[in-house]
C-alpha cells in the first residue's frame, strides 16, 4: 500500500456518499446483487449436485458481473457510514499493479506465493491454523507441532486465550500486551519446530487495532516481512480498525494479507450472491488497501462452515473466476465444523483442499477445527492431511475433483448442523512427543487410503 493509496481511501471514507449500515446491508447490497445476478443470467446457476464448477464460461461470467458490482457498490466504511467508490480505471490499475508473486519467509523456510490458475500443477501455499482459541500453556507445543508439518508453509497460530493468565479484553492494554506475546510465542514455536525462517501472519490475537500496534513491525515483534492481517468486518465493508492495520503495515513497509467472509444466506443471499460478493470484494481490496494478497472465505449461515455443497460450489466459482481472469494472489479459508479425532474433520479437510487446489487459489488458511468453537480443539494431523491433499490435488482436473468430492460429501454432510466436536489437542496427541495418539492416527490412515483409492495421488 502506498501513501497515495492510503490517502485516497481515507479521503473517500470521509467524503463519499452517505448511507447507513442498515440501508447498506438490508437494501442496497441485496438489491444490487440481485439486479446484477439477473442482468448476467446467473440466478439459479448453483447446482449443489455438481459442487465443483468446471464451466469456464460460467466462472468468467461471474467475474464480469463481479467487476460491475464492485464498480457500482464500492465499499462501506462502517465508522463514517460513507461509501468508498473507485472508477473503472482505478480498479483496473489496482488489479494490474498488484504483485503476481511474492517470496515469503527466509532461508530454507522461504516459500514462493504465486498466482495460480484452475487445475494448476503448482501447490497453493497453506497457512495453518485459523485463529482458533488456544490456551496459553498449550500454545507453543501445539503451534510447534503444526509448524513441524512440512506441508504447512506459513504459520498463522492460534488466538491466545489469556495473556499471562489474564483474560484478554479487546480494546484494552491487555490486547496490546497479548499481541506482543503472540509474536514472542510464534518465534518460540518456529524455533522449536526447526523452521525459524518461516513466514507468519500477524496479529491473530488482535480484535481491535491494539494487538496489531502492540506487535507488528516492533523490535521483537512481528517483522515487516510477515503478513499483516487486515480482515474486514464483513463483506463489502471496511472499518477504522482495518484501515489502521493497513496503514500500520504500510508505515512498516510490510506485506498485507486482506480478507473477509461472504455469507450464503446472509446479506448476499443465495450461493450465487455469496460468490459474486466475494469476488467483488476481493477485487476492491486491492484498490482499498493496496494489499499484496486478497480474498474471501465463504460461509453458509445454516451451519457456519463451507464444506457443504452450496459452500463448495460458491468457493469453486469464486476462485475460478478470480484466477482465470486476473494475476492476483488470492486467498481463501477452510471452514470445517468437525473436531479433532473425528473422521468428519478429515473428510471436510480433503474436500475443501481438493476444491482449493483445482479451483486456483494461491493461498488457503485453515483448519477451523470444531468450527472454531472450542479452545484447544485443534491438532496438526488435520493440517497434515490438508497440506498433503493440496499438493496431491494440484493439477487434478476439476471434473475429476468433482467426482471425488461427490463421493466424499455423503460421509459427513448430514452432520453439518450437528457435528462431532472431537477432543482437545492434549487428548489426541502425546504432549511429550507431539505425536498423534493411535486412534487419531488410525483415522488419518483410513481416510487417506479411501481418498487415494478415489484417485488422489497421496504420498
Amino acid at each position, binding site marked *: 500500500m502506498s501513501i497515495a493509496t492510503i490517502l485516497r481511501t481515507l479521503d473517500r471514507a470521509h467524503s463519499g456518499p452517505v448511507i447507513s449500515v442498515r440501508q447498506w*446491508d*438490508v*437494501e442496497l*447490497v*441485496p438489491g444490487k446483487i440481485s439486479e446484477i445476478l439477473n442482468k448476467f443470467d446467473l440466478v439459479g446457476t448453483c447446482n449443489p449436485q455438481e459442487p465443483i464448477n468446471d464451466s469456464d464460461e460460467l466462472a468468467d461470467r461471474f467475474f464480469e458481473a463481479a467487476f460491475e458490482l464492485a464498480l457500482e457498490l464500492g465499499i462501506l466504511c*462502517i465508522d463514517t457510514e460513507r461509501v468508498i467508490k473507485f472508477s473503472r480505471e482505478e480498479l483496473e490499475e489496482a488489479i494490474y499493479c498488484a504483485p503476481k508473486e511474492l517470496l515469503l519467509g527466509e532461508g530454507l523456510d522461504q516459500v514462493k506465493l504465486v498466482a495460480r490458475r484452475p487445475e494448476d500443477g503448482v501447490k497453493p501455499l497453506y497457512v495453518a491454523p485459523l485463529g482458533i*482459541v488456544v490456551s496459553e500453556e498449550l500454545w507453543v507445543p501445539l503451534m510447534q507441532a503444526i509448524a513441524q508439518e512440512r506441508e504447512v508453509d506459513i504459520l498463522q497460530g492460534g*488466538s491466545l*486465550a489469556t495473556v499471562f493468565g489474564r*483474560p*484478554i*479484553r*479487546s*480494546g*484494552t492494554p491487555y*490486547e496490546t500486551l*497479548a499481541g506482543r506475546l503472540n509474536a514472542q510465542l510464534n518465534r518460540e514455536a518456529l524455533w522449536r519446530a526447526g523452521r525459524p525462517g518461516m513466514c507468519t501472519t500477524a496479529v491473530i*490475537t488482535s*480484535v*481491535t487495532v491494539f*494487538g496489531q500496534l502492540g506487535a507488528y513491525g516492533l523490535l521483537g515483534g512481528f517483522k515487516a516481512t510477515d503478513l499483516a492481517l487486515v480482515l474486514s*468486518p*464483513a463483506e463489502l465493508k471496511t*472499518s477504522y*480498525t482495518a484501515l489502521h492495520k493497513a496503514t500500520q503495515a504500510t508505515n512498516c513497509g510490510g506485506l498485507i494479507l486482506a480478507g473477509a467472509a461472504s*455469507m450464503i*444466506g*446472509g*446479506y*448476499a*443471499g*443465495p450461493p450465487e*450472491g455469496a460468490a459474486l460478493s466475494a469476488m467483488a470484494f476481493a477485487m476492491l481490496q486491492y484498490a482499498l488497501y493496496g494489499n499484496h494478497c486478497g480474498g474471501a472465505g465463504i460461509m453458509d*449461515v*445454516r*451451519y*457456519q462452515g463451507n464444506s457443504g455443497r452450496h459452500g463448495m460450489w460458491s468457493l469453486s466459482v469464486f476462485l475460478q473466476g478470480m484466477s482465470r481472469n486476473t494475476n492476483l494472489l488470492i486467498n481463501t479459508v477452510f471452514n470445517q465444523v468437525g473436531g479433532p479425532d473425528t473422521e468428519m474433520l478429515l473428510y471436510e479437510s480433503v474436500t475443501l483442499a481438493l476444491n482449493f487446489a483445482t479451483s486456483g487459489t494461491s493461498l488457503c488458511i485453515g483448519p477451523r477445527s470444531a*468450527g*472454531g*468453537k*472450542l*479452545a484447544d480443539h485443534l491438532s496438526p494431523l488435520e493440517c497434515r492431511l490438508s497440506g498433503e491433499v493440496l499438493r496431491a490435488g494440484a493439477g487434478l482436473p476439476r471434473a475429476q475433483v468433482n467426482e471425488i468430492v461427490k463421493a466424499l460429501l455423503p460421509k459427513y454432510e448430514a452432520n453439518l*448442523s*450437528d457435528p462431532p466436536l472431537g477432543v482437545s489437542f492434549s487428548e489426541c496427541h502425546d504432549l511429550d512427543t507431539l505425536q498423534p495418539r493411535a486412534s487419531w492416527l488410525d483415522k488419518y490412515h483410513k481416510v487417506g487410503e479411501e481418498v487415494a483409492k478415489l484417485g488422489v495421488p497421496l504420498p
Partner: protein
Amino acid sequence: MANKEEILGKLSEGIMKGETALARQAAEESLAAGLDPLETIQQGTSKAMEVVGLRFRSFEIFLPELIMAAEAANAAMAVLLPKIASDRRKEAMAGRVVLGTVSGDVHDIGKNLVSAVLSAAGFQVHDLGVDVPSKKFVDVAQEVEADIIGLSSLLTTSMQYQKDAIDYVTDMGLRDKYFIIVGGGPVTPTWAAQIGADGYGRRAADAAELCRLLMQGGHKPPLSQPIVVGG
C-alpha cells in the same frame, strides 16, 4: 371498511414482503375496524412471522428479507401493543429481549440473525447494535422492562465482556430481574456456566427455543445452571 380477513391479509402481506408502511397501516386499520388487537397479533403478525421463519430456514429468503419482515412486524406491534390491556400483554408476545454485540466487537450478522429469529417467534426485540457497553444493556433493559438480555460475541477477546455485563447486572442488584443469554462463535455451554448466564444457544436458530424455555418453564433468574439449546 375492509373486513377482518382483508385486514389480516394486508397485515400478513406487509410483513411477508417486509413493507413496514403497509404493515403499520394494516395495524391501524384493524384498530379502526374494532378488531381485538391481541387477536390481530396472534392471527396476523405471529402467523406471518412463522411463515417468514420457515421460508428462511428453507432458504427461500435470506437475512435481508428476514430483517425487513421483522421490522415490519415490529412496526405493527408498536401500533397494537399499547392498545392491549396490560394484564393481557403477555399473551401478545413471547417476551421482551434486549440484544446486542458486546463491547469491543463489531460483528453483527449472528446478532442480526438472532434478532430476526426472535422477532419471527413473537418476541419483541430491542436491538442495541454492536460494541455495546455493559451499562447500556442494563439501561435499556430497565427502560423497556425487558425479560431477557442477549449478549453476542464473535471473538474470544470480546467474550470477556459477556462476563463483565453479567457482573454489572449483578453489581447493580438487578440479577434477579433479567434472564441473560449468551451466544456467538467462541461461546460454549461451559463458558455460559462459568460466567453465570441463564442460557446458551449454539446457533442463531436456537435462540427462539431457548427464550421460550426460559419464559415458559417457570424459571426465575439467575438459574443455577444455564439452559443449553443446540449444544
